[in-house]
């Protein structure tokens, strides 16, 4: 099967969707002629023309607001916000509009659209190229929130998102674009071409939203992760020798609670990991749900390993990033608790 980087897989998903449905349009800052600062839309304008893939003015509000109008018309816009750190100007259009149009109009109007954004740190991008704002969307009823962790899922989940009848926030862990980064910044990253999950089927397939995937079977403790942290968790499990079961959530909203509960009931222990800051991060919701549904099976408090409650720093990137050492430490403490 052909191997692709995550960038190629995402591009492929848009290509397949645009080929299949004329209503799919793609636009955003620098996505047209240039093909996006991460090249995710490269070639789409040449292939589908300037009215299906085009450059937008630098207005995230305008990009999302226009996409909402297009979706109301009947198109399926898949727009790019250049970095998740720049989504806030569009926040009102997402929260007050996209998320509520179906509900408030009782289905007279709907908002099938995808907002793609590179998310997460690890590239020395400082506080405006490193953020992980997923929890600011999981609190919003009416949205779906997806975070792929590999090329195969990225394509399947993006196609599913584009075909979804409701608005989807699609967060692409930029540190995974070229390979499964596990937090060991001192080592070279194995490229996707050498990783089984880099195998991306040609043509159309979709990966269902709302379904988690177990990345590693284990008996001792359940690690709930998504995006880059899936590989950090794998590294931590390896290095501590703790037999952790690692669940890649893939979709945060709606959440695959059954998979989570089944695993924690089995292991009796749970560690939640994410790059975003701790307080009111998505890990809080996961911990709240796990303690509610697995209270009598839990043998240790649920630990959260996350970014610290500070803006994302530049020089101290590796002090900030929740790498394998910190996750391993939490695993040990959770086993000993």
């Amino acid at each position, binding site marked *: 099967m052909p191997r692709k980087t995550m960038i190629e897989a995402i591009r492929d998903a848009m290509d397949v969707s645009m080929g299949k449905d*004329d*209503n799919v*349009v793609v636009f955003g800052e620098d996505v047209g002629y240039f093909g996006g600062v991460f090249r995710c839309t490269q070639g789409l304008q040449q292939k589908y023309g300037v*009215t*299906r893939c085009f450059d*937008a*003015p630098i*207005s995230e*509000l*305008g990009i999302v*607001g*226009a*996409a*909402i*109008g*297009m979706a*109301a*018309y*009947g*198109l399926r816009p898949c727009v790019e916000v250049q970095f998740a750190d720049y989504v806030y*100007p569009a926040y*009102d*259009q997402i929260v*007050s*509009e996209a998320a509520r*149009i*179906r*509900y*408030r*109009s*009782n*289905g*007279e*109007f*709907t908002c099938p659209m995808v907002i793609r954004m590179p998310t997460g740190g690890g590239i020395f991008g400082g506080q405006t190229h490193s953020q992980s704002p997923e929890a600011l969307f999981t609190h919003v*009823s*009416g949205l*779906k929130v997806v975070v792929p962790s590999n090329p195969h899922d990225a394509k399947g989940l993006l196609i599913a998102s584009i075909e979804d*009848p*409701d608005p989807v926030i699609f967060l692409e862990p930029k540190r995974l674009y070229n390979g499964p980064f596990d937090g060991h910044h001192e080592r070279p990253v194995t490229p996707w071409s050498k990783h089984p999950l880099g195998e991306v089927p040609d043509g159309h397939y979709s990966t269902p939203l*709302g379904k988690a995937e177990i990345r590693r079977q284990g008996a001792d403790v359940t690690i709930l992760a998504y995006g880059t942290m899936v590989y950090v968790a794998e590294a931590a499990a390896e290095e501590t020798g703790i037999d952790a079961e690692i669940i890649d959530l893939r979709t945060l909203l*709606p*959440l695959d*609670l*059954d998979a989570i509960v089944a695993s924690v009931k089995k292991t009796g222990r749970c560690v939640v990991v994410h790059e975003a800051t701790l307080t009111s991060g998505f890990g809080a919701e996961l911990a709240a749900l796990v303690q509610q549904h697995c209270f009598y099976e839990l043998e240790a408090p649920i630990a959260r390993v996350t970014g610290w409650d500070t803006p994302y720093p530049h020089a101290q990137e590796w002090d900030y990033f929740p790498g394998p050492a910190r996750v391993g430490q939490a695993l040990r403490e959770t086993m000993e608790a």
Partner: protein
Amino acid sequence: MPLEKVLSLHVPEPEVRPGGTPDFSNVPIPKAGSVPRPEVDVDPREIRDLAYSIIRVLNREGEAVGPWAGTLTDEELSEGLRHMMTLRAFDARMQMAQRQGKTSFYMQHMGEEAVSCAFRRALLPGDMNFPTYRQAGLLIAGGYPMVEMMNQIYSNERDPLKGRQLPVMYASKEHGFFSISGNLTTQYIQAVGWAMASAIRNDTKIAVGWVGDGATAESDFHAALVFASTYKAPVVLNIVNNQWAISTFQGIARGGSGTFAARGLGFGIPALRVDGNDYLAVHAVAKWATERARRNLGPTLIEHVTYRVGAHSTSDDPSAYRPKEESAAWPLGDPVLRLKNHLIVRGLWSEERHKQAEAEILDTVISAQKEAESHGTLHAGGKPSARDMFEGVYAEMPPHLRRQRQQAGV
């Protein structure tokens, strides 16, 4: 450079406050018929002055004069009068219903009826409005059933929006009326996006955006003008300048620019100002702008100069911030009276016919109200179910919402 001079902050104030005597003498009102009518494919740069004038058709004598006159047939005109009278009667009944506690909230159109009623006539099936809460004339003039509107206002068992939305936040795809948002101005850029979509699909339908004078200050206004200007979207962008936000006069949003229409000039978008209390003028300008859009010539910005005679909403009391007499002093008069007089001058209408029409219309409104109330009002009779509250958040109800609905026992 006199550096010793210190700075000071300028805070715009209206000419008069409660207690003072209203004075609109500073508002320049060009004579009806005095503003030229350019071709729709005119170069925007050649008509910049239209952003600083006011296009008017009906003169003091009630005659239709000048190059913008003559876009409507006699039948259309008398029907237009009925539409405005109906909207006014509808408002009066719903205002009363709110005071009687039959619903939580209402917003009326008193004095602004011509804007949405006349504009609606320039639209074709399939066109889409992105309205604010003060364009119900688009529905009335478009033949949307009053009972449906009332069912929504009452949040009753027949409410097409299942009780989920605040009163007057209607939505109807069939009638080209996009779901009203309680968040100001968000719809403006959405209208541009809808128009872009129509152009992308090589369709013939156009979009119409609506915003109030105060709400032009919101960010979405800028996004709308930027996108409309860049992609030459087939959209008409309306600003309804009724002189007031809530307690805030239009000078706070308008600032140092002479008019709101002028905002379009910086984007190369043709900008027209029209007498919003002149049914004929509004329709003529609407026709001009919609034709530009349909001919793929791009967007038009229209400032409708009118006056909000009533309170902002049933939660508001204007006497706290403007003189009671101000609306009477408003120089552009009352849209219903002006069209009525025009029809009388034209021999198409009479005081008797008017009284008669008023009576007929009141009957229709009251019987619609009776029917609506038979399906319940906000606090009495049939109401949407708690189940309805959980439906429609997504196309398919996700597990967590199903769990919550079960927990709620509904």
